[in-house]
């Protein structure tokens, strides 16, 4: 097919997206020294001669970090290299103690494999390799060149960092978001990382180019950096795809460069052209010997892999009769999935457990800035609450109040129900009295109901529940109301 230049406006483009994800590994110690690997400590308290790059210091490989990368590779179907090595990536930057980063260039620990999206689409991986993180520059203000002072915190320097490079198999920003969520789920299942994007333990760079729909052309690739959440990855890609579309439709060329995402302004701007690209002068690190992994150790690591998110989702679908949507959400994080299964084990109510976890528990966690890991609520507490609702001990509405207290304070539901006098009222006499009061107080609604307005009935039920602070047994209220109103 030939295209006339003048018809360029008519050409539709599709994006080709690949992601590079950096993951800080949750090891006890750093990649090449014995310093503790911990987020949020006082600056420069987790450092030693090795991670500060003092003269004469030497790196020694953290075997646990190698294991975590290989387990990630095994979980994603990669092949694990029998022999790999570490290389030096040379460039000057003040947050890098040695002015080179120990990384892996041409012999990564893992190659191949794929991340499977919920849709079943496989996003192939190029490689997974292991390297060391840099320190952090803290600028006195403005850009680095203009800053009055720059302080450097080397606590992060030497933290083990796993880089997962995808093939350019992603075709939309939303798919990139799904990829990140699916990858994060696998990583959290493996326990290899905290995967907290806001703390920087998961970071993502994106490569994106455009090509005319239906072709296999290779467009000019733009790298986008500085995206701090899954949402900003999606937004940055949306912005960048529109920008490149506009450039192409204007009959211009996309220039190969690195662009930075500006979260506040919602745009990307150029930071480094191809000409300014570093020559990293990679060469094998002579301080380290090649890494040999035999079949036995790889087999042992494979045997230690937990059930992974997709397998768990399929099992949840089959075993618990959940919707696809519920199963996806529940298996997104290992803690949620395990909590769910523990609740079900105690109460035998998978549907109710799913509803509570994805509804009121989630809302209460968000409200109090907690996570399922951090809350002191135990699965058996939630299970007890679910049983109490089922058995009519507390009303659904009162249970919501109890739930929030469970999440916030980690107390036993029976205790909360007793203390707050939240036990459901099913006493006929009390219900009759309550309904009588509501009818007396709302003559207009009563009249409206009698003229055939069904909504008015629900209003009166609501008023009765409100008057009882949610404790009244709602079915008994309905029966009593119907009887009184005829």
């Amino acid at each position, binding site marked *: 097919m030939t295209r006339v230049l003048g018809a360029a406006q008519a050409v539709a483009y599709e994006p080709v997206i690949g992601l590079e994800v950096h993951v800080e590994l949750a090891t006890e110690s750093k990649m090449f020294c014995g310093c503790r690997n911990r987020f949020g400590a006082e600056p420069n308290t987790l450092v030693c*001669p090795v991670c*500060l*790059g*003092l*003269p*004469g*210091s*030497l*790196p*020694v*490989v953290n075997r646990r970090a190698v294991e975590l990368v290989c387990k990630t590779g095994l979980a994603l179907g990669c092949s694990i290299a029998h022999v790999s090595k570490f290389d*030096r990536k*040379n460039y*000057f930057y*003040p947050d890098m*103690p*040695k*002015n*080179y980063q120990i990384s892996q260039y041409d012999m990564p620990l893992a190659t191949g494999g794929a991340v499977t999206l919920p849709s079943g689409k496989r996003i192939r991986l190029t490689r997974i390799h292991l390297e060391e993180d840099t320190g952090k520059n803290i600028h006195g203000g403005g850009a*680095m*060149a203009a800053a009055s002072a*720059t302080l*450097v915190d080397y606590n992060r320097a030497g933290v083990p960092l796993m880089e997962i490079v995808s093939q350019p198999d992603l075709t939309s920003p939303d798919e990139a978001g799904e990829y990140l969520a699916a990858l994060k789920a696998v990583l959290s299942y493996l326990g290899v990382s905290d995967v907290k994007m806001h703390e920087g333990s998961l970071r993502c760079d994106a490569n994106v180019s455009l090509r005319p729909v239906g072709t296999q052309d290779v467009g000019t690739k733009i790298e986008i950096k500085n995206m701090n959440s899954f949402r900003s990855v999606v937004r940055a890609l949306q912005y960048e795809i529109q920008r490149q579309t506009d450039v192409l439709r204007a009959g211009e060329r996309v220039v190969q460069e690195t662009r930075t995402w500006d979260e506040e302004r919602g745009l990307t701007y150029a930071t480094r052209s191809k000409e300014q690209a570093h*020559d990293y*002068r*990679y*060469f094998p690190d*002579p*301080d*380290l*010997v090649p890494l040999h992994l035999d079949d036995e150790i790889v087999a042992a690591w494979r045997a230690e892999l937990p059930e992974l998110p997709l397998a768990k989702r399929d099992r949840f679908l089959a075993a618990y009769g959940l919707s696809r949507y519920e199963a996806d959400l529940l298996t997104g994080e290992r803690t949620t999935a395990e909590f769910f299964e523990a609740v079900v084990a105690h109460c035998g109510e998978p549907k109710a457990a799913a509803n509570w976890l994805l509804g009121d528990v989630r809302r209460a966690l968000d409200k109090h800035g907690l996570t399922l890991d951090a809350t002191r609520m135990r699965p058996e507490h939630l299970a007890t609450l679910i049983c109490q609702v089922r058995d009519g001990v507390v009303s659904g509405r009162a249970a919501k109040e109890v739930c929030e207290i469970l999440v916030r304070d980690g107390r036993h539901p029976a205790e909360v129900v007793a203390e707050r006098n939240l036990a459901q009222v099913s006493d006929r006499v009390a219900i009759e009295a309550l309904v009588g009061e509501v009818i007396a107080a709302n003559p207009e609604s009563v009249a409206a109901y009698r003229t055939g307005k069904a909504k008015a009935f629900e209003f009166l039920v609501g008023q009765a529940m409100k008057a009882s602070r949610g404790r009244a047994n709602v079915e008994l209220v309905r029966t009593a109301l119907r009887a009184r109103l005829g």
Partner: protein
Amino acid sequence: MRCGHEIREAVIRRQVSAEEVTRAALASIEALEPTLHAYLCLLAERALKHARVLDQRIAAGDDPGPLAGVPVAVKDIFCVAGEVTTAGSKILANFRPPYSATAVERLEAAGAIIIGKTNMDEFAMGSSCENSAFGETRNPWDPSRVPGGSSGGSASTVGAGSVPIALGTDTGGSIREPASFCNIVGLKPTYGRVSRYGMIAFASSLDQAGPMTGCVRDAAITLGAIAGHDPRDATSVDEPVPDFCAGLRTDLNGIRIGIVPEFEEHIAQSDPDMAALYRRAYEDLRALGAQLVEVHLPHVRYGLATYYLIAPAECSSNLARYDGVRYGLRVETDKDVYTMFEQTRAAGFGPEVKRRIILGTYALSAGYYDAYYLRAQKVRTLIKRDFDDAFTQCDVIASPAVSCPAFALGAKTADPVAMYLMDYFTIPMSLAGVPALSVPAGYVRDLPVGLQLTGPAFAEAGVLGVAYAYEQATGHAQSRRPAVMAAAHR
């Protein structure tokens, strides 16, 4: 001063105290420093404190180890906790490491008294000690001549008899060449035999620490003290450390000694007097019972070219950390941080270091890596194989250590390649990672010269054994006295 093992015996038997030995060494050094300038700093207080503790231990019946009470000088490339460690560079003029090198810790654990830090070519780059940022060291045999390098200070102070033992490092000959120039024994062990932790890196795949001593037995004892696996150095090898003294012997019956025609041709062309001296040395080995066999090392003629790609490439990366951010020299500037890097490095490094950083940066650059660095690594493999093949036919290779005796100060400073050629005979062993030693072999034009003995990987005991028999039979080191020497020797 006597040999280290003799001092140790005297100290253990309490014929002399470690403190007295230390004071005598310090006095000798102070007397000779105006002439030799072998040291960048003396650790007098520290040394005397350690000596007194040692004397108390001996009085209490302890045996503080095979180097008990022996004064040892260490090249200023080894970190000593809390003491200024410069590697001969302005960029580290104020650097005090918070830790000691493993080799230093092991020397002290063996009872050695660390007496001072010796002068060296900046970051061990040089063959004359003239590249020190803190002035050149002189040769005790003729103070108008260089002591060799880069471990020139260590060679000079041992050659003058101020201390019996010093620690040096050898990347392409930096122990063996100065040992040859100063009439002492210098051993570069197998790569991986001695931990590099705390030893400031020049070229990581080549750097190796080793003893520089007045006699072969002291070299064997010192190697025994510092050798062995170190979990802090991934390249140190977990190989058993034998008793190196047990291999010392007085005859060479049954030993096959390889002579390398490629080396002999080179020395014959360089200096006929040198060639004649080495021929006599080989005959002396034969007279001790050794069988001389011809072995070929066809790729050693590429050694220098190979070395000058690999070593600068590694150094360009190793020295990147000296940027003024965390320690060492910083040249303040109003401009950005990259200007600070540039000005700090421009002011902090000497010309030879800069030359090698530029060479190495170039060799690693995109588009040149395959042609230079990668090709050099392949040649390195071929040189390694040459030695493997040779050692199927012989036990030890005997060869020149150097192509000439110590040259005059300034004679080669204007011609870097002439200086690089000084390591012609020592570089192949560094590239192959095999142990090699220089032992005094006599005199050419009244200046001392060393014989190089090389063995297979981890066969230091065999090399030391041959060196000991040769030393005992010829007594070259004892036959003459240096022009500048410690009072104890007079």
